[in-house]
């Protein structure tokens, strides 16, 4: 019904509780883990088929109801959707393999996998949606499952407090988007992206449209943790289980960026509405505050959460300039950030799993006890910092180039200064983890189990691979940028 990619994930999500129950009856709990991994693999396989279809016809329309647009719900899949879905599924496969050992001491693992599949299904639905209403339903599926995943360890007070904060703020964001939808409906009479685009791209801006833009920026800004609306992120990301934080930080905030760029570029013409300045100011504030706050942290996961905010700032530079290079750099950075930050959170999770603490001074010298995990952690941190020959460098370079080309040198300068400034805390963690003498508390810590180390090593290999040989992803990202800017083709397909 919703393309094989989404169908298989939704099927596995619904059937996983039954499989988990049966597995518990037989006494082979591992079946449900394998079943969840199988779901992601199958969906990834379906995505390859869909990619071939899209690369042939560039963009495809799938009607969900018997009657199509403007009133019926539909999916519109272009290269950008495929690129984002690929990012989501790649990280999900790694994280699901990692969770097999990471979550083994938890109760309710069946629910964990069902919610995990639900969250990824929501995210893929968001990037495939062709009208605002389908978008909203999948958006809420993604949001609600992520609230429950953040509060997964409900026997502790901190996850509950963080999740409640997240729920209130994020729901406020979703409702703001819904309100903006009602305005768009009032103006045009439909919620199909293509029909909204044809009606609104040509009109002269008025106060109602500016109000709608402001509401959309606030709504997606809360999800993407743009600075005035970021306060949920540094609480929710550290308190979730580490595998969930990797997903939240790597791909969930990327959905906010996707929504922002897709809707602003498609419906509100950048040349006419001048929202670029707003996004540029937000990006400067976001990266500066994110980096400053990260410097003050003494908790590994909280530090990584603030570093995610800084990276959202870098990505917004590309969205603000809204040129082909800029958007290509932005989406390439989304992909790279999902690998780098996912790996950093998984390594932090391995330290927590083995040592039972996440205070930086208590983890001092853990690199001598867990050499492989600490080494891949350093790879992730260096990539986040933007060291040449690792993938973070390539996308930052493209973003700087795009900002200079678009006559926004000030953005480029702020990006480079922030990037250099962030070395302060990344190098500090590396010094503490690798060089300090081991604290007494972690004297008996051993290396993480193999099932956790293998996905981490593979992600580190991908980081190095895409840093040394970036052509496949840069070409893919350029195609996505031209797909998102090719509004006329999108409109022509739906009409």
């Amino acid at each position: 019904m919703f393309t094989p990619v989404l169908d298989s994930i939704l099927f596995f999500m619904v059937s996983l509780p039954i499989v988990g129950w049966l597995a518990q009856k037989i006494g082979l709990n591992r079946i449900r883990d394998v079943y969840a991994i199988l779901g992601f693999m199958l969906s990834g396989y379906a995505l390859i088929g869909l990619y071939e279809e899209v690369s042939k016809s560039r963009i495809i329309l799938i009607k969900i109801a018997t009657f199509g647009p403007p009133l019926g719900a539909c999916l519109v899949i272009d290269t950008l959707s495929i690129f984002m879905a690929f990012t989501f599924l790649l990280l999900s496969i790694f994280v699901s393999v990692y969770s097999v050992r990471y979550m083994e001491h938890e109760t309710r693992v069946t629910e964990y996998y069902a919610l995990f599949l639900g969250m990824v299904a929501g995210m893929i639905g968001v990037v495939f949606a062709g009208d605002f209403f389908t978008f909203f339903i999948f958006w809420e599926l993604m949001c609600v499952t992520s609230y429950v995943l953040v509060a997964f360890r409900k026997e502790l007070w901190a996850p509950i407090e963080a999740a409640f904060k997240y729920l209130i703020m994020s729901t406020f964001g979703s409702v703001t988007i819904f309100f903006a939808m009602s305005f768009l409906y009032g103006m045009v009479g439909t919620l199909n992206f293509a029909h909204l685009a044809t009606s609104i791209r040509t009109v002269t801006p008025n106060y109602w449209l500016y109000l709608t833009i402001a509401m959309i920026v606030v709504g997606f800004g809360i999800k993407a943790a743009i600075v005035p609306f970021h306060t949920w992120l540094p609480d929710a990301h550290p308190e979730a289980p580490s595998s969930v934080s990797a997903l939240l930080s790597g791909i969930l905030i990327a959905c906010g960026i996707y929504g922002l760029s897709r809707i602003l570029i498609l419906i509100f013409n950048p040349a006419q509405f001048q929202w670029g300045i707003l996004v540029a100011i937000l990006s400067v504030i976001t990266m500066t505050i994110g980096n400053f706050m990260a410097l003050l942290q003494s908790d590994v996961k909280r530090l990584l959460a603030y570093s995610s905010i800084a990276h959202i700032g870098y990505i917004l530079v590309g969205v603000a300039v809204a040129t082909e290079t800029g958007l290509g750099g932005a989406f390439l950075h989304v992909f790279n950030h999902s690998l780098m930050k996912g790996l950093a959170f998984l390594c932090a999770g391995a330290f927590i799993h083995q040592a039972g603490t996440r205070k930086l001074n208590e983890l001092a010298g853990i690199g001598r006890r867990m050499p492989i995990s600490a080494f891949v952690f350093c790879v992730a941190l260096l990539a986040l910092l933007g060291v040449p020959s690792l993938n973070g460098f390539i996308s930052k370079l493209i973003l700087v180039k795009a900002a200079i080309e678009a006559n926004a040198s000030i953005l480029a300068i702020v990006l480079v200064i922030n990037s250099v400034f962030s070395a302060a805390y990344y190098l500090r963690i590396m010094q503490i983890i690798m060089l300090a003498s081991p604290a007494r508390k972690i004297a008996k810590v051993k290396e993480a189990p193999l099932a956790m180390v293998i996905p981490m090593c593979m992600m580190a290999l991908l980081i190095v691979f895409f840093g040394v040989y970036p052509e496949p992803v840069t070409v893919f990202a350029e195609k996505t940028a031209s797909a998102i800017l090719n509004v006329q083709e999108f409109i022509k397909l739906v009409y």
Partner: protein
Amino acid sequence: MVKLLLGIVILANAANLSFISFSTFRYGGAIDPFAHTIVLMAIVIEAFVTAVGLAMILNAYRHYRTLDVRKLRKLRW
């Protein structure tokens, strides 16, 4: 905390009302079935968000023994 959640529900109802009023405005009194379906689905979505929120409030009450949201401020910086 419960009032905070109810605030969200009221906000969502405002959005629903806005949909309905716009739809009647367009077709001179009759409600556009499109807006009708959207509002019905949105009410369902609101209901499950509220259910998750209430579950979270219940758990928060078990930890903090209060429903005052100002007491939930152990996480800072």
